[in-house]
């Protein structure tokens, strides 16, 4: 079975995405940050990782980079919340989501997707990447 690991610091998102992937017939595990996600892949392996981009600890870009280095065949989808993220006193252009997504793609993410997205949109992308 195609194994998907979902990494997001928001529990609601982890739970709902897990449910969706289970219903779509995937084998799903969840992690609440990048390190936990990486350990999970090391333990059980993964065909596809879906990670949020802004998280405490190691963020989505870092996580995507580490996964790509360690597991070159694992597919990666990076999700963004859109807008300017993080504390509002950040330089708006420095932390622009688009710049984030671009850097995630640059370090090896196979796809980026902007929240909120449709259920079908996500499942379609996952199937395309994994051939499931």
């Amino acid at each position, binding site marked *: 079975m195609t194994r998907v690991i979902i990494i997001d610091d928001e529990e609601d998102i982890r739970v709902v995405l897990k449910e969706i992937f289970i*219903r779509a017939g995937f084998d799903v595990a969840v992690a609440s940050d990048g390190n936990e996600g990486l350990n999970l892949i090391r333990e059980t392996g993964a065909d596809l990782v879906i990670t949020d981009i*802004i998280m405490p600890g190691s963020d989505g870009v870092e996580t995507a980079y580490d996964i790509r280095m360690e597991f070159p065949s694992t597919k990666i989808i990076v999700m963004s919340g859109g*807008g300017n993220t993080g504390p*509002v006193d950040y330089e708006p252009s420095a932390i*622009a*989501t*688009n710049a984030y997504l671009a850097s995630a793609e640059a370090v090896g993410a196979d796809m980026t997707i902007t929240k909120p997205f449709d259920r079908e949109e996500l499942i379609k992308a996952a199937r395309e990447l994994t051939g499931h």
Partner: protein
Amino acid sequence: MLAIHAVLLPLLSFGMLTVVRNVQQEIFTDHVRIYSRVFADMLQSNGQLADDERIVEALDSSILGGRSVYAVFQVGNRRLLSSIMNEYDAEKFVEDFSFGEHGDDVYYLAAPLVVGNTMAVLELGFDEVPTLLAIQSARRTILTIVMVYLIVTVLLAVLVSDRVSSPLQRLRRDSHKIASGDYTRKMSVDSEINEIRELTDDLEHMRSTLVGINARLEGEIASREKAEAERRKAETHLRHMHRLQSIGTLAGGVAHEFNNVLLPILLYTDLALEDLPDDSPSRPNLERILKLANRAKGLSEQILTFGRPSGEAMEVHSNVAPVLDEALSMVRALIPASIDIQVEIQRPLGPLECDPNELQQLVVNLCSNAYKAIKKGDGRIQVSAESFDVTPDYVKKHPRLEVGRYVRVTVADNGEGMDSATIDRMFDPFFSTRDVGKGTGLGLSVVHGIVAKHSGDIAVSSEVEIGTTIDVYLPQVEVSE
């Protein structure tokens, strides 16, 4: 000057008169004394008196010769009178000891002589009048000279003051004018006196220097005031931009959190709908939740459009007229046919480096706002787009623009217009004059974000009850053919 004369001249003339009178009197008295002595001596020879007949003859000749007016010779008790005189005249003798005594105009003198044992006295009277007349005439002469001198002096003074004072007074008048702030009049005083001419030249030089300094200072003040006004304007603009940027950042942050909430709502609802039987009474409710969540998603996207920073890839479009056409056909579909939409677009229009979707959103939002401002029946919206040359003169009126070629998109309506407080806030996100729920307050802030991204500018002119005109300036790019 005249005052000195007024004191000196009387003193001088008084002194001169005194000298003249004393000299005349001295001459007179010396003369009569010597004459009397010589006369007395003449009446005796070798210690013998002349005989009475001869004495009377001598007395007569003295009076007839005009030497004296009175002549009496007394020897002992014997008085010899000039035959021309009578007894009455002889009574008048009272010896004078100085000129003019007794007010009788006659100077009486007694010359005693001793002949042997006999005492005799020659009494003579001399007319004082000629001497008095001489003194009087001398006084007249002196007074005349003094008067002439005075008149000449006064005339000279008037003449001199005409030549010296009047140019000086004119200089003074002109200086006063300068002191009171009127620098413009040239100082020119014509005078034959070198010093006055030089003084005039110096003052004129000072004046023209002052005028120069003044003009420079005024220019400096004016340019400083202008710079200050421009700085204030730029500052206001910068503050406004800063506020918008902060709000944009904030909005972006809010959108991020919002999306993280919205995503599970959408997905959970989707899952719940999937689980429900088709005839479940909860289904329409969940569908409604899904619909509302999707509306919230649209709102979030709008916030992001505003908050999105520039720097996204834009492409150069040599002609954006078709892009605008498409936007306007969308506008026509959105706005009721009762509103008259007049369109005038220059063809081709551009080239413009832009995001066509955003350009369309800009036009749609502006038109939608124009439509919403129209409350009366005969609504009219005019949309025009053209290439526009921003000249240095135009930059003075619109300091945020730079000299060069722009695409100017104008949307004008005859709606209700805005007051200045509304204009100040019209681009603020979430600011809306419409009722809660009727507008997001994002339409114009999205326009602002798009214009800023395209390095353009917006000018708004509006009048309450008359309408609003919004000009959007987007800089054209130079494309090598």
